[in-house]
């Protein structure tokens, strides 16, 4: 669509983004508030950030969350990528319908159901609840998101590249690692990041599947939020937002550079 950007369009975009960003911006601003009363501005201060580092429970929870996040995102990325390949490359196999159903259903499944059902599984097989159960639960729901992200990249993938490699004698496994994986790598990386943030974010499933000694950061935040809004929570939320925003922006810059490089390469190839 190339057309005039009407005043109505501009207004709806500006208002829409104001709605999306204002609450987050206010939260960030008030994390630097001197006053303990969250809604009364009493001057700039970073004391709540220092208070965080002395909060032992919060730091432990952050460490648990980071470990669960990295581990579950890495395994989910492998499983999700495999699932995406299975869905796009193998159009016929027994139980494909059930398979694609199990990929798409967790995307919309209410978290309370996923959490409850996984907990009952762990209890049924007598698996001690804690770090590993949360990790397994996170792998399960985030691998589906990875699968969808990678699948959308694979659908537009130019298969003649793979065919060329195989015509030249490369076995399929080598072709995958030398040709397919490098091309879909940006999607795989953003799949990992998505899985990581989903894990970082999850309260409901973690609450069901966690056990003693494995309190995650969202569980900790949630239990404090129930007691009221405090500047400390604002501060920890700001840190989390900053981490995620930095990651996303860096990823999109890398993507953009790759894109520019690719276009340049193509033009160079045509000149020859």
């Amino acid at each position, binding site marked *: *669509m190339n*057309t*005039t*950007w*009407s005043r109505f369009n501009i*207004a*709806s*975009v500006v*208002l829409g*983004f104001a*709605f*999306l*960003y204002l*609450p*987050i911006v*206010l939260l960030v601003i008030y994390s630097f508030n001197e006053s303990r009363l969250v*809604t009364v501005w009493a001057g700039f201060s970073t004391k709540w950030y220092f208070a965080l580092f002395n909060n032992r429970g919060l730091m432990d929870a952050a460490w648990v969350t980071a470990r669960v996040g990295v581990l579950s995102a890495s395994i989910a990325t492998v499983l999700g990528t*495999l699932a995406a*390949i*299975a869905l796009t490359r*193998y159009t016929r196999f027994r139980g494909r319908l*059930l*398979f*694609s*159903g*199990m990929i*798409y259903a967790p995307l*919309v*499944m*209410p*978290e*309370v*159901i996923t959490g*409850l*059902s*996984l907990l*009952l*599984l762990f*209890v049924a097989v007598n698996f001690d609840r804690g770090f590993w159960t949360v990790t*397994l639960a996170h792998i*399960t729901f985030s*691998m589906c998101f990875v699968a969808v992200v990678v699948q959308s990249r694979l*659908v537009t993938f130019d298969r003649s590249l793979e065919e060329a490699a195989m015509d030249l004698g490369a*076995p*399929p*496994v080598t072709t995958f690692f030398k040709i397919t994986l490098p091309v879909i790598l940006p999607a795989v990386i953003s799949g990992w990041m*998505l899985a990581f*943030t989903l894990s970082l*974010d999850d*309260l*409901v499933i973690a609450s069901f599947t966690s056990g003693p000694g494995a309190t995650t950061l969202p569980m900790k*935040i949630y239990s404090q*939020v*129930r007691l009221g809004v405090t500047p400390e*929570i*604002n501060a920890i*939320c700001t840190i*989390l937002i900053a981490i*995620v*925003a930095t990651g996303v922006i860096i990823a999109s810059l890398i993507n953009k550079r790759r894109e520019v490089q690719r276009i340049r390469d193509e033009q160079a190839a045509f000149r020859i």
Partner: protein
Amino acid sequence: MQKLITAIAGRLVIVVPYLWLLLFFLVPFFIVLKISFSEVAMAIPAYQPAFDLSQGLAANFEKLKKLSLDNYQWLLDDALYFKAYVSSLTIAAVSTVLTLLVGYPLAYGMARAPSTLRPTLLMLVILPFWTSFLIRVYAWIGILKPEGLLNQFLMWAHVIDTPLTILNTNTAVFIGIVYSYLPFMVLPIYASLEKMDYSLIEAAQDLGCPSFTAFWKITFPLSIPGVVAGCFLVFIPAVGEFVIPDLLGGSQTLMIGKTLWSEFFSNRDWPVSSAVAVVLLVILIVPIVLFQRAQARAQESGK
């Protein structure tokens, strides 16, 4: 040898994720189903198993006859559960419509933006989706509470004299759902509007069609796949939402996700919470299947 490796690798690509999902996604549902037929027990696990494979088939057939439907009877008898289901569906439906009303103009505005600006706008819509759901819901508490920023602003602007009560009402739940799920609505609609051929509109306008009619007769019908996908993506998870009604809603806000949570964590009644989950799943199965069909069709046409 090479062929063997290839064949095994090809199998593993399907088998590994398949088994994983069977074990951690499908099997747990059958366990929920099983426990929903069990009797509550004051122990851990907090239920008397309805079936036990170690007792052999015959014993299980005996049990099958006196399968406990008590938990479902309980759900039927207590009006609270029925009200919670109806109210969840109503709240989710109203929020979906509201999200569409907010999201469509935004997606439309983005799709009409200069093409150099569009990637940035797209990233700006996706970015909040990456930040924590819990944090974004939490941010609204400080805004909506009686002495919160919204009331301070409205009183400063002399729009109101006494603070409005928004937090802990259904209004706050609507705001929370619209806010949290907005990217899910905007992205599919934007995707369908962005690839639209704008010369269709020009043709209509050349033939004297007023721009609103052109929008209604051409643009909107072409964006329906995106609207449908967006509505499913908002509606289905919103029905079972827990965090938003718990943090922003009040005591009169009945939502089934909250009911399930308190049934499980406060009352420790595992069989009843399993029955609540089974009924919720049965209610959602139709929209979930419709969503999957739409998703699969979109994937096919994308090829």
